[in-house]
């Protein structure tokens, strides 16, 4: 350090320190816009109760998106989310029966573990077989589906959620804040810590930007790939466990409506679908944005058809706007 002034000049800018870039700002701007629009429709939109409820619903998506984000940061994609969500829910509820007395305690970790196993297999396929992730994970999704069909059809398993699942998914314990929100916060803090403060997190960005350069710098890129896919699988399964708690049971197709929103939330939060760029704050913004969008559409009694169309269009339009900005700057 040659002097105080250079030190200051080399310090990160305030916005940069908090990870606020253009796309994150746009995403938060859209959230405010939706809230303002909703408030015009009905003042109830700004009530704390409504907002907390949205955050609770958003927490499930947020947990899935946390995993999806790690994979997208690598420049890959995890399309096995739908059935891994279901797998997590079904394995957790089934463990209650299989595990005997310990089942009640083991069920949540077991569900998450099963998701992590599928995720690890995804990672192995992408890292060692060098197969395109979207295709390998699609195949893995089909395998998970096959397993779950077999599971539910064969043994007529216990599919009721436990009290613990219900507790963390639905109830509120501290200051009336939903427990699910705390869970998301813990997951989120973990992701932020990993991405910002660990060598693994740096490696995630490095692999996403240029895997060859990361490899030549001594990064164990295969380990990074497998780790992120395993995390994605674990988080999808964890969300499945919570969803089972939320609706009191596990059922087929429960994860179907989470794939596109999860990817959309990550991408709308400014994470580059090609990898290497993005921060968790953006993902939070994306999750809230998607959740509010869904909520406002359902409050306006928009049918599923319209929701799908608006979803798709919002994603395309926002990405085109982000892309335009990126091109203008370069």
């Amino acid at each position, binding site marked *: 350090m040659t002097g105080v002034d250079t030190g200051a000049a080399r310090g990160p800018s305030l916005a940069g320190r908090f990870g606020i870039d253009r796309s994150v700002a746009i995403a938060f701007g859209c959230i405010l816009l939706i809230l303002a629009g909703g408030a015009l429709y009905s003042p109830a939109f700004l009530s704390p109760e409504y907002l907390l409820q949205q955050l609770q619903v958003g927490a499930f998506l947020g947990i899935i998106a946390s995993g999806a984000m790690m994979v997208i940061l690598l420049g890959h*994609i995890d399309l096995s989310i739908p059935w891994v969500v279901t797998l997590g829910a079904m394995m957790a509820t089934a463990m209650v029966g299989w595990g005997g007395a310990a089942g009640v305690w083991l069920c949540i970790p077991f569900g998450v573990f099963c998701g992590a196993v599928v995720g690890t297999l995804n990672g192995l*396929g992408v890292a060692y*077989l*060098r*197969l*395109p992730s*979207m*295709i*390998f994970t*699609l*195949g*893995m*999704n*089909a*395998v*998970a*589906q*096959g*397993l779950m*069909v*077999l599971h539910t*059809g*064969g043994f007529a398993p216990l599919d009721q959620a436990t009290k613990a699942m219900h507790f963390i998914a639905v109830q509120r314990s501290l200051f009336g804040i939903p427990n699910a929100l705390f869970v998301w916060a813990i997951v989120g803090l973990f992701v932020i810590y990993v991405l910002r403060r660990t060598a693994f997190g740096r490696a995630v960005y490095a692999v996403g930007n240029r*895997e*060859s350069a990361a*490899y*030549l710098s001594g990064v164990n*890129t295969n380990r990074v790939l497998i780790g992120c896919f395993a995390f994605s699988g674990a988080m999808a399964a964890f969300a499945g466990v919570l969803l089972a708690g939320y609706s009191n049971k596990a059922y087929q*197709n429960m994860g*179907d409506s989470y794939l*596109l929103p999860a*990817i*959309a939330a990550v*991408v709308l939060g400014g994470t580059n*679908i*090609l990898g290497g760029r993005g921060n968790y704050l953006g993902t939070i913004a994306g999750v809230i944005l998607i959740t509010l969008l869904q909520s406002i559409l359902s409050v306006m009694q928009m*049918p*599923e*058809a*319209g*929701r*799908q*169309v*608006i*979803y*798709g*269009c919002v*994603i*395309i339009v926002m*990405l*085109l706007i982000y*892309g335009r900005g990126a091109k203008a700057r370069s």
Partner: protein
Amino acid sequence: MSHGAMSNARYWLAHNAGVLTAVALFAVMFTLYVSNHSAGLTPAVATTAANKAVLLALVAMAQTLPVLTRGLDLSVGMVFVLANCIASTIVVGSVGTGLLGVAAVLGIGALAGFINGAIVVWGRLQPIITTLATGAVYYGISLFIRPSPGGDVQSDIADLLTGQLFGVVPAALVVLFFIVLVVWIPYRRSILGRAAYAVGSNEQAAYMSGVPVQRAKLLAYTLAGLLASAGGLMLTFNTYSGEASAPIAGAYTLNSIAAVVIGGTSLFGGWGSAIGSIFGAFVLRTIEDLLFVFDLPPLWQPLFQGVVLLFAVSLGAFRILRVRNRLELFT
């Protein structure tokens, strides 16, 4: 010149090894199926099999085109379902209005594909995310058109296209053959069709050689939409109704990718053919039928299919054995 002709044939065989493998695989499996079927190979058995198989074959053909350019179309299943829903609404009335409806459905399918292509080419978004998002839009439109299963279809056309020609040949196969003849073969032999291969093989070299890269991609996605909607039409003729079903759309998208791979087309672009994808689709369908005749418990079928799919896509991993410089693994 017999020497020249012979060596030409040798190269033709080598270039089409993937397709021929799929054909052989299908032949073996289908023989196995027919010989274990209680009725044997009757026109009725063949027609039932053909009617189911042609649907996936068309969607798989559709998927082949973007894959050849080193892209992907995750919306083929949605376009397929969209065409099904629209057809169940407008391919009605007299044969004349029905045919008009058919043309309209195909036009809408091509438009859907063109939109995908336009976003990929001019918007410069990734094919995966683009088609994932447009797929949602197309599915939403399907739901809008057909909130609950139902509708109808012009029965003369439907019966003609799903029955038998001369009481023997499954008409659906004739339709497929016709589509290969008027869409695929001219495309394969057109400049833009070959440009699609060039783009998939090496986009940079293609550009340097003066290949029309953008138009090739646009046409590939547009034709993909057209072919997927042809599949949706055939579905309508089979079921006499429309249904906006997300699981069906998802399953067709997934199976189309598997069929493409089984048919010998490289997911890294530049190599393969829609003919291979047709037989890849036939193979997948026959697996299902085989599970049926061999009395595999129905509950095992989805798992079995999933494993077959995963195995099929893993065949692509053989390329890494050839890599001598590890840096090439990352491209």
